[in-house]
């Protein structure tokens, strides 16, 4: 049940912010400070999420095969690989390192 609550709240919230962008008159959210903050907020969230899902295991920080996988994704990004290749590189390398006992 609590999972459905999370899904419902996320769906309503995410649809709401999408719609607000299309409905409010230009200028309301166009202040420089608001724009800067809105651009930096996803940077902070994505960086924290990347780090946590690479090193986090419950409440512990661990080094396991995911680190190699995410490093492979980073290399793919530097080489300007397409989105799908970046994700595939992470999955394949992680699986490979685990298969080798890492």
């Amino acid at each position, binding site marked *: 049940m*609590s999972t459905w*609550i999370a*899904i419902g*709240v*996320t*769906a309503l919230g*995410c*649809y709401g912010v*999408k*719609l607000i*962008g*299309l*409905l*409010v008159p*230009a200028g309301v*959210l166009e202040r420089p*400070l608001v*724009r*800067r*903050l*809105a*651009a*930096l*907020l*996803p*940077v*902070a*969230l*994505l*960086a*924290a*999420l*990347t*780090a*946590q*899902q690479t090193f*986090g295991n*419950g*409440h512990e*920080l661990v080094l396991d095969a*995911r680190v190699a*996988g*995410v490093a492979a*994704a980073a290399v793919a*990004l530097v080489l300007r690989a*397409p*989105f*799908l290749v*970046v*994700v595939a*590189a*992470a*999955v*394949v*390398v*992680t*699986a*490979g*390192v*685990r298969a080798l006992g890492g």
Partner: protein
Amino acid sequence: MDRGKPDALVVRDALGVGVAVGLSGFAFGVTSAGSGLTLLQTCALSLLVFTGASQFALVGALAAGGSPLTAAAGAFFLGVRNAFYGLRLSQLLRLTRAVRPFAAQWVIDETAAVALAQPTRRGARIGFAVTGLSLYVLWNLTTLLGALGAEAMGDTNAWGLDAAGPAVFLALLAPMLKSATERAVAGLAVVLGLGLLPVLPAGVPVLVAALAAPVVLWARGRREGAVREGER
């Protein structure tokens, strides 16, 4: 007169993005099912939330044992950026009021990127519609296949699929790291996110890490203010 790109070229670019990103719904379906969500819950997320980073963040937070509202808050804050895409798009596309509630669900990173790259309104409208439709259909189809596949795979971690989430986040993050400000925000957020992970309830460290954005902005504002004072 500059007529912009031919329609066929816009459609091709839009389909390229729509198909490539749409296929990665498979990774979401597997991750979500592997995190313990049911088939129905996984598909509901892709149909109703339809903004990839928020979906990955939500299932990740729930799997880590976060409370539903903390998990939803993290996913919501990630979705806030779509409001700013909407602002840009509404000026560019000039949609009628009746169409806006329907177009809103497709206001995401990829549709905004394709539409905003077009030099004409016609191109932007075609780019938005084709990217939105192809991505929505494929993302939901591959979510379903991924969730079904996860059941067949058994332990999804053995297939390395727990690395799909962070790889998706990293791929979205990389093009945003344009200047020292963005890199400072990312660095501080990583320190906060990892440093607080052992001590705060699941899902909360990410919300605290979001404060890196206003903190860095405030610090820069102060420094620039000090430089201006010094010039006087």
